[in-house]
């Protein structure tokens, strides 16, 4: 059991968990009012959208790819939701269905380009970022406020958990997504193929795994998660704004890395990502509680954490002196050509 624990992949999650506990603990001792169940649950409420995106991103990164379009897809989802609800007066549930379909379809489209024509995910999803952002403006240049009663209820509902503490519907959705993601990665053939592809895509192909289907599916899934995150975001902001989600892809990648997933692919899991999001959320709360620091310090701290985690991963790799399975893959730094 100890040996399993010490295996680098599990060690990573433990490190992230330790980091989170450390931060939360530090905050509790430094600031009164910090330590409370509600404060902990708020981490999920305030970062529900990020968690959903990060779960999708986890799949993509484990498979050895990357998706830079998630932020702008989130924005597009908020715009379309707001527009359809406020301007076209469609049923909110129908709107959500439409938005999720569009997100999945766009992800599917990018996945097809990447798979069938051997195009680098970095470039294709980068163009997807432009595409999504541009389409946001096509929908509307101005912010659209949402006053629909369904969205209103979703924004303000409180689901009681323990004592007086509560979760929002968005947070619950996010947790469900994380749980489903973890299950799929561990207990379905699709999930295991994702790992295989991240380990060695050539081998996965030769082993007869459905690489093409899976790759397209991964990007469609990421698109779905971005769209869902967008819907959840509209619950949070009750508006659609073309700049929503700007830069969020980097936040997602950062939380996934901090959660122990290797950017090189093949290693990682959804639980780690959840803890990564908790760390991200805690940093933001700490800065708010501190009061005097520019909120942009969050970026700097996150950057620093990514640095530390990547450094640790690098050190571990070097010490293990991994027995390389012969057959060098020429992976360019930008993870192109997967």
């Amino acid at each position, binding site marked *: 059991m100890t040996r399993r624990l010490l295996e680098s992949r599990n060690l990573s999650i433990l490190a992230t968990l330790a980091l989170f506990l450390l931060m939360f603990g530090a905050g509790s001792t430094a600031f009164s009012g910090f330590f409370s169940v509600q404060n902990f649950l708020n981490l999920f409420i305030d970062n529900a959208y990020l968690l959903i995106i990060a779960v999708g991103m986890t799949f993509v990164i484990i498979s050895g790819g990357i998706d830079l379009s998630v932020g702008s897809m989130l924005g597009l989802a908020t715009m379309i939701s707001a527009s359809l609800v406020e301007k076209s007066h469609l049923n909110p549930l129908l709107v959500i269905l439409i938005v999720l379909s569009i997100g999945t379809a766009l992800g599917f489209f990018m996945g097809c380009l990447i798979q069938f024509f051997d195009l680098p995910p970095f470039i294709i999803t980068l163009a997807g970022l432009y595409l999504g952002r541009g389409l946001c403006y096509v929908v509307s240049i101005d912010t659209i406020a949402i006053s629909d009663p369904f969205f209103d209820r979703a924004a303000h509902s409180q689901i009681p958990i323990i004592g007086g503490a509560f979760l929002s519907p968005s947070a619950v959705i996010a947790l469900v997504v994380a749980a489903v993601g973890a299950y799929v990665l561990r207990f379905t053939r699709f999930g295991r193929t994702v790992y295989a592809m991240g380990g060695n895509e050539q081998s996965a192909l030769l082993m007869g*795994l459905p690489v093409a289907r899976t790759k397209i599916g991964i990007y469609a899934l990421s698109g779905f998660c971005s769209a869902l995150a967008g819907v959840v975001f509209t619950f949070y902001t009750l508006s659609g704004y073309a700049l929503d989600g700007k830069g969020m892809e980097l936040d997602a990648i950062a939380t996934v890395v901090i959660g122990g997933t290797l950017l090189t692919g093949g290693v990682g899991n959804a639980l780690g990502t959840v803890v990564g999001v908790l760390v991200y959320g805690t940093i933001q709360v700490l800065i708010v509680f501190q009061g005097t620091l520019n909120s942009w310090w969050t970026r700097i701290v996150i950057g620093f954490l990514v640095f530390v985690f990547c450094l640790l991963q690098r050190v571990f790799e070097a010490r293990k002196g991994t027995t390389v399975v*012969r057959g060098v893959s020429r992976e360019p730094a930008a993870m192109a050509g997967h």
Partner: protein
Amino acid sequence: MPDEAPVLEMRKISKVFPGVKALSGVDFRLFRGEVHAIMGQNGAGKSTLVKVLTGVHEQDAGEILLEGKAIRPSSPLAAQRLGISTVYQEVNLCPNLSVAENILVGRQPMRFGRIDWKELNRRAEEALRRLNVEIDVTLALSSCSIAIQQMVAIARVLDVSSKILILDEPTSSLDEAEVERLFALIRTLRDQGLAILFITHFLDQTYSISDRITVLQNGLFCGEYRTAELPKLELIAKMLGKELSEFSYAAEHAARKKEAATARKEGPDLLRVRKLGLRGSIAPFDLDLGEGEVLGLAGLLGSGRTEMAKLLFGIDSADQGEVEVKGKKANISSPRAAMMIGMGFCSEDRKNEGVFGELTVRENIVLALQVRRGMLKSIPYAKQLEIADGLIASLKIKTPSAENAAFQLSGGNLQKVMLARWLATNPTVLILDEPTRGIDVGAKLEIMELILNLSKQGMGVIFISSEFEEVARCSGRIAVLKDHAKIGELSGQDVDERKIVRTIAEGG
């Protein structure tokens, strides 16, 4: 076995690539319960034949009969589904997955719609036990040695069910004990009735494991023989397309040249190494190399020859000992430092450590020389061409021009390009790690001649080869290695194959 019908028959297979007739009317038969080796030089067509069988290429003429039925596999996956499984030199598994998962991924046992991990591990253990392998199947594949990884690969393909098992150069990365283990496994599988196609460059191994040998030469079928009835020398002659008598003359001729060439010249030592070592890599050793001397490093796979070479050339940093070059103390801390004091090194892994595929042949050749000159003083283009063309001619490198990209060249010619690169720098000491590996016998002889010529010109050469006969043929002295340590030195009359083997068996 030869009385029943063959499980596989390839009849009159022809395959043409632009400008090259890879296969012309080749026949091949494989029976159940036998190990069959295909032998031939590079360019003889054996890899093409295997690629046609495994569905990578489609033949232009001829047919393939599997158990009497005509087949035409369109891809490796299709071939696998027909029962033709291949385990390549690059193991083709996923290093991040566990051993168990590598065996069963894609066919994981399910229970109530989810993967049953317990059952998966159990099935994997069973599959490995059939091969007499017992390991913790939950470990990540990357934490297993290459030998074990290969066993896992074999377990996987056999678990899928196979009629034919193709092993493509399986022993290149294994040490002696691991090779024996693999061979024991192969014999077990053969006795169970599996048809096994074994591809290797190692003559000794062919004789050790195969029941029959098919020889190809220049895309033509030369013959099918029972291993026990084919003497080694005759096999080599057939592979070369030469007559037996011709061949022994060449060997004799080479021996006479060697005597003259590799004798030690007068003058200070080129290289004087005392107690150089690196923990975990090679035990502290002493070495001397004189002007015009060819020093051979002989040992079995895994004995530490490449480690020794890499230490001498500064690729690895020693943690003890000292080196003197031409009487002066030298601190060889990097390949660059080694190069600057006049050393050169041809790696055995030319694909990953030597060749720049996208650069032209010219650029590949002048690179080291350019580094010596420094990055600011570029060698004029005309001079570069002169140097490159000169070496292409003297080494007989087959390329349309010096401006062709290196990736267009065949393995043997790439080896010569690497050699050319270091010769261009006019080194005082040249270390050659397996310069004859994976190239055809004709080119091998050319390179060995070249080594003798270089030593005649005063260059000190350290020559590493896993073929003891070669080392004995080219070297004036031999350092014998075993298990990452130098255990002895042979000189004069003792420089011969049998003495090497005896030293390894008795020494260390």
